[in-house]
C-alpha cells in the first residue's frame, strides 16, 4: 500500500493528473472517504490528465457521468446505493470492465468480486487542508 499526504486541493488534483498519465483501458479506481474528503478533487485531476476540459459534476443523483478524453472516463457514485444487490439491479456491473477508465465513488458499498484491473483508494481528512491518501492495486 502506498501513502501520500496532500496538503492542498491542488496537490490532490496533481496526484489524479499523474495517475491519468498511466491510465489504460479497463482500469477501475474505487474511492472511499467521507463527504468532503477530496474524492471529487481526485476525479477532477484524473479528468484533467485525460485532457477532459468540461466540468466534472457530481454523479450522486444521475449515478453515472461519462466524458470523452484521451480515454473515456466513466465517473460513478454509489452514494445512493446500499449494497451489492442494488448495484447489480441498477445495471452498473458493466462499468467494472470499462471501455476507458471508471472511477467509482463510495466503492465500499460493493462487496462482490474486485474488477480485474483495480486500484483501491482511501481518502482521509487529517487537517483543515491535509488529506491522507492511501492506495493499493488489488485487482482480482
Amino acid at each position, binding site marked *: 500500500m502506498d501513502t501520500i499526504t496532500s496538503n492542498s486541493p491542488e496537490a490532490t488534483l496533481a496526484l489524479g493528473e499523474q495517475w491519468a498519465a498511466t491510465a489504460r483501458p479497463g482500469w477501475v479506481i474505487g474511492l472511499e472517504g*467521507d*463527504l*468532503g474528503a477530496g474524492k*471529487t478533487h481526485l476525479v477532477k485531476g484524473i479528468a484533467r490528465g485525460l485532457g477532459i476540459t468540461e*466540468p*466534472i*459534476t*457530481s454523479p*450522486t*443523483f*444521475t*449515478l*453515472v*457521468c*461519462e*466524458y470523452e478524453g484521451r480515454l473515456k472516463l466513466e465517473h460513478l457514485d454509489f452514494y*445512493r*446505493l*446500499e449494497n451489492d*444487490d*442494488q*448495484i*447489480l*439491479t*441498477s*445495471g452498473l456491473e458493466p462499468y467494472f470492465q470499462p471501455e476507458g477508465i471508471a472511477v467509482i465513488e463510495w466503492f465500499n458499498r460493493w462487496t462482490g468480486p474486485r474488477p480485474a484491473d483495480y486500484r483501491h483508494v482511501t481518502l482521509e481528512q487529517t487537517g*483543515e487542508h491535509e488529506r491522507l491518501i492511501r492506495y493499493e492495486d488489488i485487482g482480482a
Partner: protein
Amino acid sequence: MRLLAIESSCDETSAAIIEDSSVRSVVVSSQIKIHAEYGGVVPELATREHLANLQPVVREALVQAGFAASELNAICATQGPGLPPALMIGWKAAQSMAFALKVPLIGVNHVEAHLYSPWFQGDPPRACWEGFQPNISLVSSGGHTLLAQVDHPLDHTIIGSTQDDAAGECFDKCAKLLGLGYPGGPIMDRLAAQGNPEAYTFARPMLNQDNHDFSFSGLKTSVRYFLEKHPGLSEDDVALPDLCASIQAAIVEVLVKKTIRAARRQRLGCITLSGGVACNTGLRKAFQQACEKHELNLQVAPSNLCTDNAAMVGLLGERYLQKATPTTDWQADIRPSWRLTEPA
C-alpha cells in the same frame, strides 16, 4: 394531435397523454414511499420499478384520457440524459409502440423539458407558447443546476451551470448531515420557515465571481466542518430550524442573485424557474421579492411539473413535431450523457 409521452430517466416512471397542447392525463408512479424506508432515494428500486410500472402507468394514462393506443398520432419519450438502465426501459417501450402503431417517435431531452415547463400552466396544464417572453431560466434539481438564456421557444443557450454538485443535491446532503429524513430538501424547507436565516453564516460559493456558474460542493463540506466543531447542535430543537434556515439562505441567495444578475446583464425582463428545487418555498419567496424589486416578470413551473413527469416531455415533444423537426429513428439509442448544448 394526440400523443403519448413517457419519462423514465431517474426515479419516476411517468406517462402522459397530450392533445392539442393540453395535458389530458399524467400519471407518475411516485416512489418516495418506497425510498423513505431506506433514508434516501434508492435507484435500484426505481430501476426495477420502471419495468414493473411502465405498462400500468401507460395504460392508466390512456384510460384517464379516454383514448385507445390506436388513436395516438405520435409517441415522445425521454432519450436522455439519465441513468442508462432506467432510460432504456421507457425509451425501448416508446420505440416499440411507435413502430407497432406506425407513428412518429420524438426523443426529448429531459433537461430541456424542465427548461420549458414554466410555460406549461393551467389546470389541466397546457402549453402557453403565445405568452412566451425571452428570459433567463434557472433549472435546478437533484441532478442539475444551470442557467440558460432563452430567446425563443426551442432557442436557448446555456450560460452557466454547476461546476460540481447540483443545488438539490446540496439540500439533500446537508439534510443528511443534520440527521433529517428523506426527502431532505422539503424537510429542510419546512424547518427553515421556523428558523432565523442569520443565526449562522455559511459561505455563498461563487457569488462574487463574474460568471454564471455555481458551486455547491464546498458549502456541503463547510456545513460538515461546522457540525463537527459544534457537536450536538443539530439535535437541539431550537438550533435545528436556525441551521436549516441559514443553510437554505446560503443556497437561495446564490441562486437568486446570480439569476437576477444574468437577466439584468442580458437585458431580459423575465425569469423562469423549474426543476424540483423550484418547489422550495424559501426560494420562491426570495425570487418573488427580487423580481418585484428589479421589475422582472417571474414565471414558475407548476409544482406538479417541477418534479420529473411525462407531461413536460409530451408538451415539448409536441412543439418539436409542430416545428416539423425530423423524427427520431426507431432504432436510435438512448443518450445518457446528452448535453443540452448538443442538437436533438
